């Protein structure tokens, strides 16, 4: 018994393609391949890929930093988190560092509001953030290289 219509789940294919890309994005070639695999037109797959905020069609950093700025995080000081990140990384929200290491993004609520302010770096959650904590997190990620 297999659930029908789901073997060619486009969203899962897109997620996989992005995960396998070092720069956290889906290339145009990949989009074409996925369209073929799923039996859809290129424009349909492009439409899906651009709808969801977790997907990117532009190269991003190895680490994608997504900071929440919804109500609870905003109230608990997310603006100061953005400020330190922008200062430390010398980029603005939406940009990638020239060395291709970090991308800074703003996101809606991540469901971690019990530990606001919160952010995710790739698949990892960081919460109860303070400006000091951010500096430590960045240093650790830099050291790993």
């Amino acid at each position, binding site marked *: *018994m297999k659930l029908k219509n*789901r073997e060619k789940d486009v969203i899962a294919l897109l997620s996989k393609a992005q995960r396998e890309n070092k720069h956290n994005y889906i290339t145009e070639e990949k989009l074409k391949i996925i369209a073929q695999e799923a039996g859809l037109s290129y424009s349909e797959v492009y439409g899906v890929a651009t709808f969801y905020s977790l997907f990117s069609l532009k190269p991003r950093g190895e680490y994608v930093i997504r900071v929440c*700025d*919804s*109500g609870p995080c905003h109230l608990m000081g997310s603006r100061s988190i953005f400020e330190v990140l922008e200062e430390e990384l010398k980029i603005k929200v939406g940009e990638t560092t020239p060395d291709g290491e970090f991308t800074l993004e703003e996101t*809606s609520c991540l*469901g971690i*509001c*019990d530990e606001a302010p919160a952010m995710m770096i790739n698949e990892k959650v960081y919460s109860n953030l303070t400006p000091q904590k951010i500096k430590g997190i960045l240093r650790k990620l830099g050291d790993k290289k």
Partner: protein
Amino acid sequence: MIKELKSPMRIVLDNCGKINPESIREYIAQGGYKAIGKVLREMKPEEVVSEIKASGLQGRGGAAFPTGLKWEFTAKAEDTPKYIICNADEGEPGTFKDRAILEGDPHKIIEGVIIAGYSVGAHYGYIYIRGEYLFSINLFRKAIKQAEERGFLGENILGSGFDFQIEIHQGAGSYVCGEETALMDSLEGKRGNPRFKPPFPPSSGLWEKPTVINNVETLANIAPIILKGADWFRNFGTKKCPGTKVYAISGHIKEVGVVEAPLGITLREIITEYAQGMREGKFKMAQVGGTAGAILGEDMLDVPLDYTSLKEKGLVLGSGAILAMDETTCCVDMLKCFLNFFERESCGKCIPCRIGTEKLLELTTAISRGEGKEDDINLMLLTAEVMQKTSLCALGQSPILPISTILKYFREEFIEHIKGRCPTGVCKI
């Protein structure tokens, strides 16, 4: 692990923190999967639907639609196959109560989905979990496998002849996908745009087939109701809104977390008794129901937080999220934050919401910079009102509620900004 405040009552969260969520054995030891046994051996599908109807359980995802009625519509629909969907897309800011249940007691949700399937005649279920909840996604993959191994899922469940299968779908980042019809399009592999209703999901849902879609918390109530009965369930909460609610409270309070309480508890009780009061500052306002919810001032501290009592006042309980804010909070800055959320998450399918959310954000941004005009306040209200009347889904219909209620209490503060001063010093004018 989400902190659970001292809950006065536990139906939904009963096992959370008590059992190892990775162990089906521990769930079974607490009476888990007994309800599915009872249903398959002793009850006809119609009887299950009647029991849920009699319990008065209302959907906990926000709209408070009677669950039994939803199941009955789907059971009576003739088309097949039918589907069950568990909505675990939890995206309403301030809401983390579904995560508490997902991470604490996955099998209770699975059991609820199977019972729903049996009662409406569905053999397939999906659990749509938001992409960021990776911990829950992995936990559910394991839990489903365990349930299959023990014969609670798969073919001929417990020798009853009933087949049921569950699959996980991982979301990809979109608030509007929590809206039921958008979620269905998303499950079908499309852009998650809400559909025009009617038709409603019970007659035409996933792949245009009859579909029950329920919130995580709704489904977590099913097994307890089956085991203990509708009358037992009606002992809790209010007459019109039976049972408990899992409230998620955050903001300027001493203890942040989830608390399960009978429906009808007041905001004052939640803040003072369970969240241990405000931190340093004095209470200024609370937003109830998430970003799409209303602002409540001090005069509303004693309103019972149930669907009916709030509706009578033109307010909503929504997801049950509560954001408590003290006097250091700037109203204009917060409203700008709420409107930024709507602007970012508007799917763009319909014009009033696509353009309206942008205009609303522009207007509040101007006010927060001291560049607003007095007329802008009325323009905001008018824009949000038009959106309420003409938008396709509840996302575009919602901004009027936070805007009109915050203005009801703090219009003066907006006017001060327009005159060039932010009373709390938050906005840089």
